[in-house]
């Protein structure tokens, strides 16, 4: 966290990881914004947290488990009803096999 410089290459890498296409215009806008946000986050570095356990959930619930019972699912029609594209009762995407 010491360096807040986020490079254009880094932004490209992150946008690829997040699967979000950014236009050049967006990159130009985002870079200084991200930098000032990251710079602000540096405030956390000043806090001593050596013996502190991290909090991932606030209300200390434990062991919330379901019994292994089958309940009704969507009908095929319901499941597919929101899909932009279907084929033979499947959801459809561009081919995923690499050539």
């Amino acid at each position: 966290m010491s360096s807040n410089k986020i490079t254009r290459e880094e932004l490209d890498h992150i946008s690829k990881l997040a699967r979000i296409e950014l236009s050049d215009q967006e990159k130009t806008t985002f870079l200084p914004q991200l930098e000032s946000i990251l710079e602000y986050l540096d405030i956390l570095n000043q806090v001593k947290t050596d013996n502190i356990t991290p909090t991932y959930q606030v209300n200390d619930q434990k062991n919330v488990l379901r019994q292994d019972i089958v309940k009704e699912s969507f009908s095929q029609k319901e499941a597919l009803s929101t899909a932009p594209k279907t084929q033979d009762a499947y959801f459809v995407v561009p081919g995923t096999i690499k050539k």
Partner: protein
Amino acid sequence: MKITPIIGLEVHVELKTKSKMFCSCDAEHFHVDPNTHTCPTCLGLPGALPVPNKTACEWCIKLGLALGCTPNESSFFERKNYFYPDLAKGYQLTQYEKPFVINGKIKIGDQEIRINRAHMEEDTGKSVHIIKNNEELTLIDYNRCGVPLVEIVSEPDLTSAQMAKDYLLKIQQIIRYLGISDADIEKGSMRCEPTINLKIEDGDQTFYTPLAEIKNVASLTGVLNAVDYEINRQTEEFQKTKETKSKTNKTTRGWDAQKNQTFLQREKEGSSDYRYFPEPDIPHIEFTKAEIEAIRATISELPDEKIARYKTDFGLSDYDANLIAQDIQLAQVFEHVIEIFKNKEDIKLFVNLFNGEFRNEDINIDKIKPENCLKIVTAQNESLLSSTSAKIVFTESYRTGEDPIEIAKKQGLIQVSDSSQIEKIAKEVIDNNPKAVQDYLKNPNSVGFLVGQLMKASNGSANPQLAKEILEKLLK
């Protein structure tokens, strides 16, 4: 130059719970119409949340305990982030930092293989690839999405393809004993990803070749061949490039079963960054010591224990005991039958029948009749059936359900132990085979030929022991 393969295995096992891991959809996905077992949670719809399946968690721990693992005091799920259309939520729920169980080991022969962990996660959907109007499309069925998986990660303690195969068989055997999965590699309910590199010692120098993880190995032979292929490939590669293992040069390779070779799938590990973090939607899970012990108590006899018991209690050979215990269903049939047996000797006789050609039958516990089995063994004891005939009768009576003695009578397999009858035939055999008689008189060890002739003349029904004795008596 000394080359030692270093092999670790990641094994994914699909649990056969009734419902999925994080929702109440039916977990069955074989021969089911596409997208009929789905709900907001397993379709990754907006706003849907996961609630873990208790039975699946318990089975994961049960498997871990059977593999000699220690449970973690507190476990939690994490999100493993990556994009792929069969992964509805865009992240897989898995366990990374705190798996349910860690640090186990199993024995393959004399070798101990350490198990790093067994953790709980969820399966992805299934993809079908088609071409429509010249366009390549992938069709997705989410029925399998969210089915519980346990991932068992070994330490890199395996040193050959054969050992990798043996390890897999052992894991499969244990899982089937626990009854928590079909663990069928061909059907995909057990999947295996070996990671391989080589330790190469050349003089006083030691090198380690880059790691390669192999995907899509869909059979046991595949594992054997893929690992062997990879050992050879890495050996050749090292001789060419001298490249050694680094933090960034692990590759992912696919297995092409048709061409019988691995091929490069993904160049560098650095390109995948899963951004694991604790799943906020599911509270942490802590099983108490008592709960763990209750799970342990549900573990029935494991293969090694069963083999040991067969050897001590029934006096079976190591070979026979292993052959029966190999498959839990077979062992159950065996134990079902011998329940009505009274002594070790009878059991041993039965094992000879059971471990013979009978193994080619489709063996079913509902079909086998223990009283018939006992009748055959008793008939053998009373010399009514020869061991050869007993095998024939056993298979036939299993197939038809008919009384074995009736079958033996019909097929003329009841052994003749009446001395006078055998003596009559023996005399004929002696008369018809003067040359063999001459041979016998010179060399008594050649009696076998005459016994054979006698057996033939009796249509196999004579008691061979008795036949031999009578022949020897007559020729004295």
